[in-house]
């Protein structure tokens, strides 16, 4: 095995945010982005984080993803208090436990599809052969095993996002965080990506949190939470119905 199964020794509740607040500094003074947010995500659960631009979705995702730190509150992910981690520990944590998918794919243009996926596995060690095997398997999962040697510039947006997803799941993370994964895609491609995410969640048994303002996402998740001006508001009934 390349790495220990991400689900070993993990609590049932993978994400636990309590009283999380965050602000950013601007010329006009501090701008609150998140205000006393509580959020829980369980293992293998799919949650959509909805809200308009500037509502704090990405910030919440970054905090949960050990990319940013909350000003107040506690953040426990996979049983680890992220606030107690230093920079290196955060980096290592991301490498082992988390997968990321971004709106604009964030692929390395000088690496092929296979190499982009391998890039996510290198921090975890292992042999070259095992990394290649895992990467190839992840690309097969996303249906791109015939494009291993292609560079991102040679691929469509949908294909690039599939590579990005393969990169995110190759290490079998406990949690997959997707920030507007369909934002740069047309409706049909977006739907395919969301289907893929759903398939992968079931295949890899990871929790998925998707930040989005795309209403279609609701069909692919277990639960929808909404952020309005940094505050988590009760789910709307129709969204709750859609989710179920």
């Amino acid at each position, binding site marked *: 095995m390349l790495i220990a199964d991400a689900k070993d020794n993990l609590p049932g509740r993978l994400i636990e945010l309590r009283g999380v607040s965050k602000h950013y500094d601007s010329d006009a003074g501090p701008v609150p982005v998140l205000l006393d947010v509580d959020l829980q995500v369980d293992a293998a659960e799919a949650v959509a984080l909805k809200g308009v631009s500037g509502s704090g979705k990405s910030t919440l995702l970054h905090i949960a993803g050990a*990319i*940013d730190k909350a000003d107040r509150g506690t953040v426990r992910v996979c049983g680890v208090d992220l606030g107690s981690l230093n920079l290196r520990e955060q980096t290592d944590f991301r490498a082992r436990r988390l997968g990321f998918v971004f709106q604009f794919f*964030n692929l*390395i243009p*000088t690496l092929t599809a296979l190499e982009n996926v391998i890039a996510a596995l290198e921090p975890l060690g292992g042999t070259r052969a095992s990394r290649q095997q895992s990467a190839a398997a992840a690309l097969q999962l996303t249906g791109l095993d015939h494009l291993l040697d292609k560079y991102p510039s040679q691929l469509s947006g949908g294909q690039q996002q599939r590579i990005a997803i393969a990169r995110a799941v190759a290490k079998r993370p406990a949690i997959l965080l997707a920030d507007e994964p369909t934002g740069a895609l047309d409706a049909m491609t977006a739907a395919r990506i969301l289907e893929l995410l759903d398939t992968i969640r079931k295949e890899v048994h990871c929790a998925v949190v998707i930040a989005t303002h795309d209403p279609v996402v609701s069909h692919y998740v277990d639960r929808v939470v909404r952020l309005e001006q940094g505050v988590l508001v009760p789910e709307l009934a129709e969204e709750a119905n859609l989710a179920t």
Partner: protein
Amino acid sequence: MPPNWLRRLPLPAPLLHLSRSAWLMFGRLLAVGMIAAFGLAVYVGGLSAIDSIFTARDNWYAEGHLADIEMHVAADEMDNFPEFSSIPEVAAYRFRMTYPSSVSLRTNETLPLLMIVDASRSNLPINTLKMMAGTGLDPNDPDGIIIERSLAHFHGVKVGDTLSVKLGKDQATLHVRGIASDAEFLLAPVNPALFVPSKGSLGVMYANPAVLSDRLGFLPVNSILFRLQAGASIDDVLQRVTERARTRLNVDWTIRHTEQFSYRFLEKDLSVFRIMVPVIAVVSALSASVVTVFLFLQWVAAEPQPLGVFLVLGYAPEQLAVAFAAMFTWMTCGVLIGGLTFAPIIGGAFLRSFSGSIGLPLPHFAFTPSCLAWGVVGVIALFGLAGATAITRVFVMTPRDAMRHSIALRYATDSLGGALGRMMPRVWLRMPLRSLFRHRIMSGVAILSVALGFGITAAFFISYSSFVGTSVNRVSQNTWDAAVDFVSPLWNEDVAHLTTANGITQFSPYTKGVAQIVSMGNRINLYIGGFDPDNQWHFAQIVAGQNLSNSDPTGILLEQSTARQLGLSIGSRIVVEVQGRQRTATVRGIFSGAMPGEARFAISFHRELADMKEQSTGLLLRTNGDLQDLSLKLLKDPDVQQVMTKAQVAAEILAASGQVTEIIRLGALISISIAGLFIFACVGYTVLLRSGEYQTLRVLGYRNGLILLLIVVEIGFLGLASLCLATPLGALIAEYLNRKLSDAWFEVDTIISLADYLKTFLPGFVLMPLVALPIANLILRVPIAKELRSGEIT
């Protein structure tokens, strides 16, 4: 963010935007500016420093009332000398005795000495002494002397010291009363009778006439100094005083002050730097040109969207072009100010180094107007051209550019980059290597510019090593072990006695002196060495023709620059003259020599010409015994002035060439710094452009150390390619420099050694990762979240 004062400047919108844009790339602009400023400073400062030396020299000569003409005659009583005051162009003249001797120093070494005794009875302003310590000569203090400053500077002699000076067969004890500088010995006196003139190898002292007259019963005179009226023709006066002197005296030689050995040595020395300094400046200019054009093009290329927006808003392309032109103009002004501020610093460093190394007083730095003008014109032309090239891009932009979204993905890599990258086992090797191939032109330009910088540095070290190595090799090709100079010419039987007494069985006498030759209306003095053609112990690097031969006793060898100056070639017939005796000689060979004006005759020919039959001024010897022992024994002989072993000659060469070392190091420092700045300005920029990729790696779990390693590796790959190219470049540039040196001085063989490359490449290998550090810091200190929020990762 730009500072508030920049944001509040009352500028038109395009210019305001560009000034903020410039702020964001301030580091790169500063690096480019520094490269250009360096080049300007080196060109203006270096060449002005060289001119300052010449100006200072002329001023010192004027202040010291240096004689325009010096005549050397066979020693005679002053009463036998003709008068020269009736020659109208002669403003003043002074009689003196220049007495070659030797002095014992506290270190037990014996130094050749020139004792100067003033025989004139008036204080005429010719070769006036400038007292630096102590008091002047006192006629009531016959044993009191003044020493020339080099004796104090190089040999630690002080006021109050007592010196033991050889006078004929006696030793005189003389007391140092003062230290003075003399325009005649502007450079630390060198002994041209030595095989290698080195600073301080000749001591000079000024004594009361009683020192000689008490011992000889009369005061001999063998030197006359002349100062001419302003505007007088030196050649005319020289001829007339020589003719007048010949009516009563045996004239050895008459020379202009420009023919003085130290004068000519200084000219030769500085000619070397007139070659080196412009080369450094040209390399800086080339690097600056490439970097500036590149940076300006990058700047415009990075602005399509904002410029497109301006066009949409109704601004004309001309208005945008003017805004860019204003920015380039401000940058040009900054470079001019910086470069011209640096120029005196670089010039001053050169002056201190050069003057200290050859024993010259420190000259005052002054700008040479022509260098200043050309330097300024060069910078304006460079930035004008670069700016114009970049501004043309503005005119091809359209409002549609405002709609475009820049996709970094178009910069992937090419097939070669792909193939090479596949060979790399890890991402932190693969990514940097492929990044070099995604901007091929930029990478090529960067590699070439850095290679130029390192190549020229290596070339300087190679050229210097070649210069020294050639000199030392020439010495080692001599098959003698030591050269012995006599106090005065010795008869053959005295030479035989000297050699027998010291157990020397292998020796070859030589003669040294001065002769004049006339060719194509030029009359110049030559330093003659007369050698036995059957004993080719004293090596000559023949560049044309043949060596001396007894079958052609009047065939002579000429030093190559002298031959060139006189328009002489193999077979040329010339008239040589010593003390009025003339003979016809033929140029048999031309050689490469370190001494300006050197010529070699067959000893028999020189003896006849100089009326030194059966006499020698020195000898070359070989020995199987202890050379050191033999040298010490010989030095005790009253007839021996100097003994120089081959090893000592080689050591003197190295000591004399030390002056170049500092200049070489300064040039190397500048070149390496320029290479570092270039990497920072250009490669750093493209690394920063890809900041998003590095942030992605951080998101994936790559530690900061690995990100830093990635950047260091990319710069390392670029550096490695540059150093590979720098290797042949260095050899080629060194060969060019050596050809120039050979034309200016003596034939220099290009000697390439690994050590010279390592002196350049090792600092380069250290520098380049250091350059990577601030670039990496810029990337790593940005929080990932901030980068994600700004949408920079695309």
